[in-house]
């Protein structure tokens, strides 16, 4: 085969990996592909690969508008046709890869992944002409898959359907190190440009060890009836908070905050710096970052309020006083510099209580433990969750260790039933990724007198078969076309489920929903039977404060 005769360049190898991962349908195939990659690729490329798949994206030095323009220049296509293509493909990097003329000879294929990433980083200091020349020359020397990957590297957004856990497992297998150890070593703040593969895997990564978080332990949704969990005394119940999962890290002279998305968010929450002198050196707390109001011991602000804090670059005094951000602590992962994850939850909890109580800061709170004697009592407690600003319960086995990633058995989340409302489909747009070229992104409306008022978009909840059905309906019943959006005859009724509701000046309806999705298709209902705007406003009154 042709493959074996050529020396495969790093970029081509990486592109082949991306293609394999993108199409394989089984976790084992993905593992195998990754393992092969980790065996064959050069070390510098492996480090970059790990960085990319664990969300460490290089800074953007070329923006999407520039890519767009440079591709148009090469292809000579009119702008509207480019856009039309983009809406059908649903991915800019791929659209460009498909539109560029296929190169005859791939001369540049010998370069490594690291070469391109470093070259792109250096472009930050260059003027537009140099950037353009570099990108267009790269395109000309690459095949379609390489171009796709190259464009993805530029635009960021590298998501091709593998979890970080899969990468960790493959890495662990090929390096012969335990997966939880690997997960810990590749987390935290390190720079792929200056970190050697061996150093990274041996835990001597060039980055600052001080800020390195532990991989989060995630719960599955409760699958069985409560009694199946066994004796109530074995379990600890807490409220499930609707904020951002985070880790507070107090080490050396510093205080860091990591989000579950492995983003260092220290700067966004200056109030946490006050904990620095209150927490013992060498402690790591797991908990929820949350907008915190007054009251005893604390009140939780709606997620929408917290969002106003995350969204901005510079936090003003006004922001700080309007939405103070607190931390609800529920686990202790490190104490006095020692990894406590292997100890049972009961022991970690006792020490956590001691640490938080000693700190005694109004913005640092313990996640309350819910007292209950039998499962019925707990089920009852759950019905009051929404009023507390919580989205349900967490159940944790008292002797559970703190594990890595999403695991069944010891931790469960038991969310409250969502709020629901019946609405009619009014706009549709083509989707992205595996929904490319299908009308799958919908806007829904409720009734207000004779009018229909749009109030939410929803993208998930339908099966592939239902999506195909709706897609066919949209194609046959389009009233108007606004760019990529089609106005659809208001006929199809869906039950929309959501977790919360807040007032919003940005939306015509005056409300913003939390996690809206399609619960089911109400084929039994016609557009005359949908809910009203008044019904939504009522929900806002009850749950939206």
């Amino acid at each position, binding site marked *: 085969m042709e493959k074996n005769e050529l020396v495969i360049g790093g970029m081509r190898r990486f592109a082949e990996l991306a293609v394999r991962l993108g*199409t394989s349908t089984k976790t084992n195939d993905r593992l195998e592909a990754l393992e092969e990659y980790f065996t064959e690729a050069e070390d510098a490329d492996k480090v970059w690969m790990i960085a990319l798949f664990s969300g460490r994206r290089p800074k953007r030095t070329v923006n999407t508008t520039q890519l767009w323009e440079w591709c148009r220049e090469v292809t000579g296509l009119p702008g509207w046709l480019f856009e039309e293509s983009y809406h059908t493909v649903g991915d800019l990097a791929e659209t460009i890869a498909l539109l560029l003329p296929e190169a005859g000879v791939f001369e540049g294929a010998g370069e490594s992944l690291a070469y391109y990433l470093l070259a792109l980083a250096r472009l930050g200091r260059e003027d537009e002409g140099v950037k353009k020349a570099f990108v267009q020359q790269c395109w000309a020397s690459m095949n379609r898959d390489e171009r796709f990957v190259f464009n993805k590297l530029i635009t960021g957004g590298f998501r091709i359907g593998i979890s970080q856990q899969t990468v960790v497992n493959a890495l662990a297998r090929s390096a012969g190190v335990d997966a939880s150890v690997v997960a810990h070593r590749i987390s935290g703040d390190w720079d792929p440009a200056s970190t050697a593969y061996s150093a990274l895997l041996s835990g001597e990564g060039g980055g600052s060890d001080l800020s390195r978080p532990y991989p989060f332990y995630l719960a599955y949704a409760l699958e069985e009836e409560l009694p199946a969990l066994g004796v109530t005394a074995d379990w600890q119940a807490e409220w499930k908070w609707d904020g951002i999962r985070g880790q507070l890290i107090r080490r050396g002279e510093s205080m860091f905050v990591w989000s579950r*998305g492995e983003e260092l968010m220290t700067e966004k929450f200056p109030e946490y710096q006050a904990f620095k002198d209150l927490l013992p050196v060498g402690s790591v707390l797991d908990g929820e970052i949350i907008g915190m109001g007054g009251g005893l011991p604390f009140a939780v602000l709606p997620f929408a309020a917290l969002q106003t804090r995350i969204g901005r670059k510079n936090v003003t005094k006004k922001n700080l006083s309007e939405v103070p951000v607190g931390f609800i602590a529920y686990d202790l992962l490190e104490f006095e510099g020692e990894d406590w994850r292997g100890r049972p939850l009961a022991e970690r909890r006792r020490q956590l209580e001691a640490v938080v109580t000693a700190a005694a800061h109004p913005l640092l709170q313990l996640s309350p433990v819910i007292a209950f004697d039998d499962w019925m009592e707990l089920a009852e407690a759950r019905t009051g969750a929404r009023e507390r600003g919580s989205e349900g319960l967490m159940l944790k086995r008292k002797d559970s260790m703190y594990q890595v990633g999403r695991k069944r058995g010891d931790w469960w989340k038991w969310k409250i039933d969502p709020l629901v409302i019946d609405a009619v489909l009014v706009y549709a747009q083509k989707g992205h990724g595996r929904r490319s070229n299908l009308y799958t992104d919908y806007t829904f409306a409720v009734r207000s007198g004779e009018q229909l008022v749009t109030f939410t978009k929803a993208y998930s909840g339908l099966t592939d078969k239902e999506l195909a059905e709706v897609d066919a309906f949209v194609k046959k019943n389009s009233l108007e076309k606004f760019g990529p959006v089609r106005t659809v005859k208001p006929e199809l009724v869906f039950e929309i489920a959501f977790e919360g509701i807040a007032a919003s000046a940005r939306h015509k309806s005056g409300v913003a929903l939390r996690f809206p999705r399609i619960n089911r298709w109400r084929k039994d209902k016609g557009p005359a039977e949908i809910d009203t705007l008044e019904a939504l406003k009522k929900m806002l009154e009850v749950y939206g404060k």
Partner: protein
Amino acid sequence: MPLIEFTDKGLYCARGLFYIDPWQPVDKAVITHAHSDHARPGSGGYLCHRLTVPLLELRLAPPPGSVMGVEWGETIVMNGVKVSLHPAGHVIGSSQVRVEYQGEVWVVSGDYKTENDGISGAFEAIRCHVFITESTFGLPIYNWKPQPAIFRAVGDWVAENQARDKTSVLIAYSLGKAQRLLLGLAPVAPEIFVHGAIWNVHQALVNAGVELPAVQRVTPDLPREWFKGKVVIAPSSAEGSPWMRRFNPYAVGVCSGWMQVRGNVRRRNADAGFAMSDHADWKGLLGAIEATGAEKVFVTHGFQATLSRYLNERGIEAAEVKTEYGEDEEGGELSDAGDGGVARTDVDAGEEAVDDGKE
């Protein structure tokens, strides 16, 4: 009165008193090819290419003597209107319809592709005043690799599966791509199994004198070991159905122009996608339209708005036309997701979950 009108029954030539690919029963129908969105049952008489005759008989069960076959280039006069068929390169027997009256020439493309696939006859551009073209893949993102390159990719994939003792199940339309695949795979895969739907088409064509590689029909009595490492060709209705279980372990490769876009491969949950189509790609459409020299172009099924706007901007007068073509029997290349296959449960669905930054 235009020579061909767009009516609610289909394309109609009032002067010649016949329809072309009507979607409702009519008196006289000229048929471009045997796919079910172009050839529908119930009409009084059918005129089509000689090799489309056995296919119409297989699929429409028309009354004896109601189907008339002609050769490409042979002229039939219908009520003073000259009608002739010309190769469209889409599938075996597929033809464009040339209609001439008092020096005015219209051509209806049906479905077509411009690359010669070696079995469907090479597409011939016919000079005309008005050209009615399809637009299934009327976007510049659709640019096919040449057939030999695609066959190489399919062959490599089959070899890889063989090395892992897996059966290679290729999903392809029973009329058209299935025969094309046979041609490409016969040299590398000595034994090829086919689904009953493909077997029926194969037999009809072989009986009509078309030379095709030998195939073996998949029947319940065949021992499962026979399929190990072999190639199976099946229509998309079989994808994900219990019928497939007998091939375990197997890998699924979908052959369709829609596989050009990665998201579609993932949506189909296929192990591999091969962008192989019996329709013209963007360049093919533009080249064919230009070669007809037509002053006016009507664009049917596909990306008709896009293609006609582009043609107008390039100085070729074009308009879009709504038809009922484009929904093939096997789910239709147009409404790609609607293939009747049962959705497979995605065991790895969890990996695709959107990370919302919290539990």
